[in-house]
């Protein structure tokens, strides 16, 4: 963790400052030029001088010395109150949040009760009973503040308690206190550190305040120095500068250290290990691949040489390279592949919806004859009006604050500029169009009142509200039950029958087969195969396609191992030279690694493309056992 902190210069500086002040206070008797009560009546209320570096107060007491000695009192007070604060607050919060029930209610009521108590008055009472007893005051402060921490800890614990890994630990037979110690406490560290730094700052200020009120200890403290300064503000304004500066900077440093430590604690386990192989990825980006053919003038959408890059650690790493894709009017095209292959990024980039700093670095997207890349105005005209978007998570893609009907009406108004009432009427019509029963009722419902399937229908209604000619659907049925998935696919097919072109992003061969005529298989940011869906599933011409089809359990024979593709999709920074699938490919030969493989037409297969040098070997391999599939 110390090594993590090293990357936070501000935090380190603040920590050093705190350490310096603490050490200086501890060794005050050695460092201070004068005793804390030594008087120099020849220099009273003076500014900085050679004798008194920070000046003197009333009776000529040396400010520097008094600050050093005062730090001991103030800091010990802060440490005592913080210890009480943490011990009581974390324990109460943890127990309340983890066990719930009556313990939880008891702690909450207690916290409410303590909240109602005015802290400063209680402290004054305590100091009236124990005059000048700093420890008593600070213990009281810690106790009074602890319920506040307990509330925060309780709510974080309650959330953590629902985490799957807590259940996993319970299933592993761990005792409750072991789970709290091992799984809950470490996750609380960040929250507690921030709360502690806030409390520490508040404690310093309160201690100062008590000194200012003159009810603290009668010795030198930061508070009594400020009090002294304020009483003599008229005669010697300088007096306030050293003590005020010290208190302000100390509080500030506490906050900075708190933030830095919190971040360092979180980074320890959040960071994926750095990938040092960016140089090779850059080489991939600059490698000239097959020269892109001109866009297809007959196509509704024609993508050529599309390359998308995302910033990673300051460098731009391409995640999708050289994608060509044509979609005819009314055609349904599926993009298939595993996660991390760039299929969603490809779909998103068509609409210019890339997040996280991603951008198109090369290529063109021609839609209805006009270029969309580098034409944000044209793109915003096309979005919604000509191309609709359907997302993967139907409920999350709706705004929870507005009813389903009003969200669709908003889209209608954006595209037609009609009246509110007309837009609402149209919204209900659209809901009927997507086959929702009782559309008028559904229009009044809020997203949380919709089932997943209903929400996806609402999402589709919103997508077609602008009367587009093409829909891009990113895994539209992945979050749904199979029976609901089938209904959503039926709806999409109906829309397509009405002339809508569809780009479907999916990982499911069944969904692809259901809806699409043509399939595009992506692997590691490239198109590796393109063909009619029927030809593709029966006679794949790329080993990845064949492997992916083979590992589908639909084909599996019980009791026999599934023909899995070993290994994983390489990350963009780990793409090899040449074929990106070679490391996992059973047909790979030496020439696969020599240079980029072009997307080419396999012999005698007019409309197909494959990015494989040895596709002909697949032909002799046994085809997929489709008898199992068709019942």
């Amino acid at each position: 963790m110390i090594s993590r902190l090293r990357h936070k210069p501000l935090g380190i500086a603040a920590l050093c400052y705190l350490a310096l002040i603490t050490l200086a206070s501890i060794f005050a008797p050695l460092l201070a030029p004068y005793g804390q009560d030594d008087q120099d009546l020849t220099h009273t209320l003076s500014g900085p001088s050679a004798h008194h570096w920070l000046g003197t107060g009333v009776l000529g007491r040396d400010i520097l010395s008094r600050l050093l000695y005062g730090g001991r009192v103030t800091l010990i007070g802060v440490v005592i109150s913080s210890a009480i604060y943490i011990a009581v607050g974390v324990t109460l919060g943890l127990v309340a949040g983890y066990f719930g029930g009556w313990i939880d209610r008891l702690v909450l009521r207690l916290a409410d009760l303590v909240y109602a108590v005015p802290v400063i008055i209680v402290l004054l009472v305590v100091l009236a009973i124990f005059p000048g007893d700093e420890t008593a005051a600070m213990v009281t402060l810690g106790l009074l503040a602890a319920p506040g921490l307990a509330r925060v800890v309780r709510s974080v614990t309650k959330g953590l308690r629902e985490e799957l890994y807590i259940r996993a630990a319970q299933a592993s037979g761990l005792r409750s206190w072991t789970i709290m110690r091992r799984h809950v406490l470490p996750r609380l560290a960040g929250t507690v550190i921030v709360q502690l730094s806030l409390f520490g700052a508040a404690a310093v200020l309160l201690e100062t305040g008590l000194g200012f009120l003159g009810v603290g200890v009668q010795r030198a403290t930061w508070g009594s120095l400020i009090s002294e300064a304020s009483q003599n503000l008229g005669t010697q304004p300088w007096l306030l500068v050293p003590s005020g500066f010290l208190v302000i900077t100390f509080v500030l440093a506490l906050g900075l250290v708190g933030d830095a430590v919190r971040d360092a604690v979180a980074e320890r386990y959040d960071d994926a290990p750095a990938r040092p192989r960016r140089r090779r990825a850059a080489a991939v980006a600059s490698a000239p691949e097959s020269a892109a053919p001109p866009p297809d003038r007959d196509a509704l959408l024609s993508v050529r040489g599309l390359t998308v890059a995302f910033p990673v650690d300051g460098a731009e790493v391409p995640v999708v390279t050289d994608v060509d894709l044509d979609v005819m009017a009314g055609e349904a095209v599926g993009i298939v592949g595993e996660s991390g292959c760039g299929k969603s990024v490809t779909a998103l980039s068509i609409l210019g919806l890339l997040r996280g700093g991603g951008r198109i670095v090369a290529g063109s997207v021609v839609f209805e004859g006009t270029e969309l890349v580098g034409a944000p105005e044209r793109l915003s005209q096309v979005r919604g009006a000509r191309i609709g978007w359907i997302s993967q998570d139907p409920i999350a893609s709706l705004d929870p604050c507005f009813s389903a009907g009003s969200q669709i009406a908003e889209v209608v108004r954006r595209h037609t500029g009609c009246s509110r009432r007309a837009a609402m009427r149209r919204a209900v019509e659209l809901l009927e169009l997507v086959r929702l029963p009782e559309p008028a009722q559904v229009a009044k419902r809020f997203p949380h009142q919709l089932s997943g399937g209903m929400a996806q229908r609402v999402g589709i209604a919103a997508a077609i509200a602008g009367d587009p000619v093409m829909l891009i659907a990113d895994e539209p049925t992945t979050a749904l039950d199979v029976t609901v998935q089938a209904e959503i696919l039926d709806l999409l097919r109906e829309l397509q029958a009405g002339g809508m072109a569809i780009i479907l992003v999916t990982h499911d061969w069944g969904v692809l087969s259901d809806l699409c005529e043509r399939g595009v298989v992506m692997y590691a940011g490239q198109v590796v195969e393109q063909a009619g869906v029927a030809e593709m599933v029966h006679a794949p011409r790329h080993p990845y396609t064949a492997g992916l089809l083979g590992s589908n359990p639909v084909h599996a024979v019980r009791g026999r191992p599934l023909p899995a593709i070993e290994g994983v999709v390489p990350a963009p920074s780990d793409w090899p030279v040449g074929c990106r699938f070679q490391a996992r490919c059973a047909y790979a030969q030496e020439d696969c690694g020599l240079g980029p493989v072009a997307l080419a037409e396999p012999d005698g297969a007019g409309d197909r493309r494959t990015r494989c040098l040895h596709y002909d070997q697949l032909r002799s391999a046994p085809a997929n056992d489709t008898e199992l599939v068709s019942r």
Partner: protein
Amino acid sequence: MTAPLLDVEDLTVRYRGSRRVPVTPAVNEVDLAIGRGETVGLVGESGSGKTSLGFALLGLAPVVHGTVRFDGEDVTAAPSPVRRRLSRRMQVIFQDPFGSMNPTRTVGDTIGEGLRYGAGVAPGPAKQRVAEVLAEVGLPESAAERYPAHFSGGQRQRIAIARAIAVDPDFIVCDEAVSALDLSVQAQVLNLLARLKAARGLSYLFISHDLSVVRYLSDRIVVMYAGRVVEQGPAEVISTAPVHPYTRALVAAAPVPDPQAQASNRAARQALAVRQRGAPAVGCAFAGRCPLATDVCRTERPLLRTREDGHQVACHHQDG
């Protein structure tokens, strides 16, 4: 046949609702038996109670009625010392490879936890065991020193499997254990599960919404709908010749990777489709969606009836 390893009788699980809205049970009067070395698949849509049933076996869901027997011992409401002992024999693999591991603990720590704190194994032997199970699931020994964030979904699921087998259990609940994985990785993990089963004689309760995955791994399949078992039987029978209209709908809705077969499937499914109505208060919970529903379905709840070879169906119209 000897006594089953796991025997669930008349199990009802109900979560606490608010005072005004009583909740219908998540699991309702379910009987289930799993033999030694047997894999039982549990399918159903979201909300069918399949996960709640799995949780109830592990003591993680509130059982209001019925019994769970493990190896002859009643463990329905086992107190925590008994649970701790049981956890050496019953384990779980969750769906979410990201949520099921504490991000602040190293992988070795996570895998060894059940050994160290559940089974009370000393640190040295526990570390040795962690290395063994990591090798068994196909991960390098060095993985133990790293954090979950450094692994992909598939690797994390291997880690979750390693954690489950570390204590050398007899029975593992796999709750959607491969659902979040990509096809090629899913196949790897399914193979791993099948290999472990063969090597260790494990029993699985394999919970999934994906019938093709369940069919591949299971000996027997149990279909749940609205908290009840509506059909159960040998895996091949359920997946190729289902009887209950809900199972038939489920099988027909699962898309197959072949446009032609899919088109005929679709036609069959659309012939089955009915306009949805609410489920009746009494009678069959599926009646509102069922193409075969008649008056009797709305007044009388169908009971599970044995057909042949342990094939059971709960439907009034299963014969015609």
